[in-house]
């Protein structure tokens, strides 16, 4: 407020002063203009930057919104993982008909939600989908660098790996 008032006053004085103090005044005004232009550029730059940030942010938020559903499902499956793992272990120990039915129900529900279980012995080891827990010596060269046992299944939602399958990886040594 105060600032702009002063400036206005100065501007009003210009014609009078110009007569006796022309060159110096022009120089001063030029400097002032230069500073004003610089400042304008700086503010415009900041403003554009903020606008761009906001536009990008809005776009990303829209994307996030679309992902929200997927994220919620992923979080849910992550929470369920310990129980799912234990279920698989239980089946390995004693495969009763009841347990199998329950397990199938659970897997069907997950499948409906777009969650897929994966990990099979014999697959080539791929760190994008598998996590190596240990190595396992194999007698056949074709078993080298493939999944020997699946200790814990992996889960995906679409292309996203919620958890890699935790596996043992075959190692073939010629001299054995």
């Amino acid at each position, binding site marked *: 407020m105060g600032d702009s008032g002063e400036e206005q006053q100065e501007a009003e004085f210009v014609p009078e002063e110009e007569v006796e103090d022309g060159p110096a005044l022009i120089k001063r005004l030029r400097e002032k203009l230069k500073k004003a232009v610089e400042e304008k550029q*700086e*503010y415009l*730059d*900041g403003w554009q*930057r*903020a606008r761009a*940030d*906001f536009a*990008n*942010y809005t*776009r*990303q938020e829209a994307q996030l919104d679309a992902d929200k559903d997927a994220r919620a499902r992923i979080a849910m499956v992550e929470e369920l993982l*310990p129980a799912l*793992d*234990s279920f698989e*272990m*239980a089946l*390995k*120990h004693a495969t009763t008909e009841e347990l199998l039915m329950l397990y199938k129900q659970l897997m069907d529900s997950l499948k409906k939600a777009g969650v897929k279980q994966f990990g099979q012995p014999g697959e080539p*080891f791929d*760190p*994008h989908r*598998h*996590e*190596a*827990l*240990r*190595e396992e010596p194999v007698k056949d060269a074709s078993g080298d*660098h493939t999944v020997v046992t699946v*200790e*814990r299944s992996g889960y995906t939602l679409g292309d*996203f*790996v919620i958890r*890699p399958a*935790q596996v*043992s*990886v075959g*190692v073939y040594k010629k001299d054995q």
Partner: protein
Amino acid sequence: MGKILGIDLGTTNSAMAVMRGGEPQILENAEGARTTPSVVAVSKVGERVAGLIARRQAVTNPKNTIYQIKRFIGHTFDEPGVGKDRATVPFETRKSASGGIEVLMGEKWYSPEELSAMILGKLKADAEKRLGEPISEAVITVPAYFNDSQRAATKDAGRIAGLEVKRIINEPTAAALAYGFDKKKNEKIAVFDFGGGTFDISILEVGDDVIEVKSTDGDARLGGKDIDQKIIDWLATEFQKESGIDVRGDALARQRLDEAAEKAKIELSTAVETEVNIPFLTSDTSGPRHLLIKMTRAKLEELAAEFIDRANSITKRAMEASPFKVGDIDEVILVGGQTRMPAIQAAVEKLFGKKPHMGVNPDEVVAVGAAIQGGILGGEVRDVLLLDVIPLSLGIETMGGVNTKLIERNTTIPTSRTQVFSTAADNQTSVEIHVVQGERAMASDNKSLGRFVLDGIPPAPRGLPQIEVSFDVDANGILSVKAKDKASGKEQSIRIEARSGLSEEEIKKMQQDAEKHASDDKEKVELVEARNLAEQAVYGAKKALTDNKGKIPADLETSINEKVSAVESKKTSDNAAEIKTTLEDLTGELSKMYDAIQKAGSTTQSGGQPPTQNGGGGSETAPQDDAAGPEKK
């Protein structure tokens, strides 16, 4: 000019952040995680991978999986510490032609700079994917104890990754920047960084434009992992006592113990006891064996005590090496995920005699600080552009003396907000807009900023006129309030300097008051709402009775009249529940009436809607506020 990426290039994990809209923001990597393992590898099929993917294949490819490369960067092969580090890693190293270190990965020899560049390259690529724009500049953090050659090597790593490193800054300095402590001159700051694998303590002093590291100390082999290991050992021992089976050699069991230990540790940061539950951990001839152990916070603290003590004594050593006494320290900052442990926070507080700062996520605070430094260098962070927030909510008084907030406190300014209100009585031709500031539910309990009258509203039934009230707060905190009658186009406004003499203390007091009175305020508002509802119900019922005369059975009409009188007699009561009971009775009778009217084949259901719907139309934006308090003048 593009964004400058702030990178915390860690020994075990790295993180990255950028400034967006003037605020630092952590960027997730391609795998959706906020931190990235500092691991690179050439897989057995010849693919070069970095981060989580590299770590997943480490077990089956140990010789070609390179981690903790930060321990080697900028060192010469013959330095004494290097030999020790070389002995602990499974990958091969050798002396380079220039006396430096080279690491073998996938049948090729790489310098630590090149390997660090692969991690930086992954971060860069993932950041570009997240932001949708190319990134060519970065600020990278290094430990305070890094010497010139280590800093130069880190800068080179950035260059190799295609990043122009605008600046290398110290990790503790970045943490201080994240908290904005660079602005307070002569402030003395201690940064306590207990990470996954390393511990660092730094004592800083804020000078004229720079944050100077006065002393630094640490232990490159002390971290959260040591505590995890202790928990795993304890769990395995307990399990062995019970079952006689040692599961430490079983890779899957170890993995599950590892996860359970980490989970227990995290849970014990908030709970005092947790249950470690791992069904089917292993099996013997008798069948499957499960692990189920209760773990208390006390037990965890006992297991962690030796590590905390070590960190403590190193901190004391760093204090002695600095020119300050413990009492001189103004701020203490916690960095590293392990500092979430209450015992560590307590130890730090005891040592420095003040509460440490932990408002910024300790895993991310260094990357956040690096991003802020990037913002300063890129001209994005400027004092001119610092945005303020309003400290107290702004609203108007509506029917029954309720404070209807238009702009909530902590809203960033400049901002504006518009809401449509209506009249409280039939043929009301003017409304009074009373602007208040504060958090309390009743207008009279808040600070009155000003009031004005909007008149000339064409006569109409209550709730019908649409009065648009706009609040606008400019960058200087000046509030302009405008009220406009949509039908007549008449408007009135007022300008209020927001900082109307309220000091910081008064603001605090008002905020505290609001918290203190939250529950009685709620009761008051409930009462007002019940009274308003009662009034609307009576109005609606009477109107419906007149409009539908002759279509309502006589006995029902009598009964409605009775209920209306009952509500009228109670509507000024101080007991909200009592008002509500009579209201419910009336509503019940009214729905019978509507049924009767419908049966009589009437189509004229004008005016009176069931009063529970809180009266007529008029306000699209704020249905519950439609009866704007502005009373008839």
